[in-house]
């Protein structure tokens, strides 16, 4: 656990020392702010359901940017071999890096705290959907981060890592679009695999254990695949 935390701390220090995070965060906050301002001033209702939907789309692009350097940069800088020969186990290394990315993402989400505060000062928001919406964004982001981390473990090129990470996240997001064409049990399966469909429940204020387990399972699977990928490449 101590070693895992050490990896996480190192990741956080690297992230906050790099201008990339501040640029990504500022651009994201401007986009989130535009969604908030436009949607709330048009609907004049004290909720963030549709703001959350728009933010979830932006996360498709943001998540791989937060994870692109996790392993690709280590390889490019030649520090990957150092890590592989360190006393760290692969699982500790992967979980430490994921935790670092997850905390960075949580900070990014926390920087939208002004939205509920503004709603509270102007109206009477319903707290249930606000809390589940943020929880849904975090869990969906976590799954995207794990997918992005897996993509980063496959290559030493950060741009390629972003493209692969974005591709996986996008596929998880739109997979239900094929459901009506396919129909039947396969269509139902595709519907169930859609992370955007799962997020819908969170955004409207419904907490379902199936949705929580789905997001955590995706995170778990991509973490496992990252470990396998690194293990494979080590040899």
């Amino acid at each position, binding site marked *: 656990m101590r070693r895992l935390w050490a990896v996480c701390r190192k990741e956080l220090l690297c992230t906050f020392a790099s201008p990339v995070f501040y640029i990504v965060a500022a651009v994201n906050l401007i986009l989130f702010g535009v969604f908030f301002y436009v949607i709330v001033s048009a609907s004049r209702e004290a909720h963030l359901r549709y703001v959350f939907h728009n933010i979830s789309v932006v996360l498709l692009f943001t998540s791989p940017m937060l994870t692109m350097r996790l392993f690709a940069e280590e390889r490019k800088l030649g520090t990957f071999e150092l890590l592989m020969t360190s006393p760290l186990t692969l699982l500790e290394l992967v979980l430490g890096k994921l935790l670092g990315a997850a905390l960075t993402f949580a900070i990014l989400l926390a920087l939208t705290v002004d939205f509920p505060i*503004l709603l509270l000062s102007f109206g009477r928001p319903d707290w249930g959907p606000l809390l589940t919406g943020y929880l849904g964004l975090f869990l969906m982001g976590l799954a995207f981060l794990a997918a992005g981390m897996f993509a980063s473990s496959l290559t030493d090129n950060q741009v390629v890592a972003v493209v692969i990470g974005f591709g996986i996240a996008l596929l998880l997001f739109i997979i239900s679009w094929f459901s009506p064409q396919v129909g039947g049990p396969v269509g139902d399966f595709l519907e169930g695999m859609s992370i955007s469909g799962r997020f819908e429940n969170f955004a409207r204020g419904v907490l379902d254990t199936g949705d929580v387990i789905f997001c955590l399972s995706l995170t778990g699977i991509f973490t496992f695949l990252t470990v396998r990928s690194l293990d494979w490449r080590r040899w």
Partner: protein
Amino acid sequence: MNALKPWSRALGIAGAVLLGLWVVLGAVLAAPAWSLWATGGPGLLLAAGWVALEWTLVRTAVLSPGLRYGSNALLFTGAVVIAVALVNVITTRHSWRTDLTSNRFFSLSEQTRQIVKGLNRKVKLTVFVGARNTESGELRDLLELYGHASRQLDIEYVDPDLKPERAYIYKITGQPTVVVESAGKRKDILPQEMFGYQFNGQQPQREFKGEPVLTAAILSVASDQQSVIYFVEGHGERSIMDTTDNGIASLKAGLERDNFVVKTLNILKDGKIPADADLLIVAGPSRAFPAPEQKVLAEWLAKSGRLLVLLDNVSPPGLDAILKPWGVKPLAGLAVDPRSNYPFAGPMVPAPLYESHKITADLSKQGVAVILPGARALELGTVPGGTVLPLLKTTDASWLEADWQTEKTPKFTSGTDRRGPLTLAAAIAVAAPLTATAAGAGAEPASLPPHSPKIVVFGNTTFVTNGLRGTIETGFDLFANAVNWLSGSTESISIRPKQRDDRRIFLDNVKTNIMFTVSLIVFPLGVILVGVWTWWRRRSL
């Protein structure tokens, strides 16, 4: 720990068997929740116990070169992914969910949940809706709740643009349409039945009435028998074919939606009351009931009849005589209640208080008001072997206005007007009822009938006319509850369409500017400044 070591194999096998059962029950069969908990929980504990006891073995196996780098590595990875997918299938099908919206907007009403949980056969819902249909969002949300509430509901979406042949076979004319089918029975729910407008003052508000119509349709196709209701004609009653404001066509539509067969009956022409009649409704008669009709009606009522009477301003001759033996006497005049009334119409439109009864229980609990424009009062007596209970009463500030036709502004006149509280509706249930002749003549009861007669009398008809549909709909719920009580239906359909919580915010220029500045300038700029400061600090290191 070591003491358990000899048992590790047995624990492992038991755990694997229980987890295997859990998978079969959860993924394949429609198993009840308790069986999943009973197999999944202990199975997981036993398997975890085995892993803990045999940790060295497990670690060696997982880290073995064969599983890590050989051709088995791909198989191992695939097996893990499939196992996680299977767990997801089961946890999704048997998930626990809670609706955290303050008005539980994304939850089904208790009535719907009871009805769909009690289904003993499959009901298929085919939803014809295109991908680009903008109205279908709420319907999809709702159907997801239904699908989650019962495994007996089989929901299928069909896009009429992609599969026009299905739409043609089903004769679909609009989108979205839900076709509800079970055991050869079919009921179509059309878009206009689900989507409507509620007029609150001047501002029409879109209203989604999906839950009441869907639940009624499911109940309708899943139920084996339908009660038959006859509306009595021939005395100037309100017509169930009349779609104008004074008609009651919407009442007919509502009853059919609630799984009743609605017919009309002219007692004088037919000379008898049909054998399949479960309930007779007399809705605002204005002409006399001839003596032979009174006799037929009284005989039927005394045997096992169920009658619902809606009175208009004046009772026609004969009707009072029919009601008299049952302990109900309509009084002349209209109720005036200056304390509890419909504020947009005044004291002649009282909003009476609910008395304790099965018919009023739901509405009383929901705290919604009913209004009876130009209502008459009833004087309640007793009926031997039965109960005569008030359903609605005005406040003690009310009175019965005798001069309502001449007085422009109603005011209490001592001597002619009668002081409240006034009973505006009553329910009569008789366990030891009247004989036919005795009932007709208003005499004392003599013999016992095979079934118990029931009667409900409302001192008003206007509260269920088409004109009030879309304004104050509580009257229709009250009426539906009365019909359900009379017909002995256990399912009382009074599900109100869900109303969105009013969480509108008033945004003036100042507030809009604050929103813009804080969300689009202050926070992003703050992040940029911290970034610049970090960069500057690192540059000077």
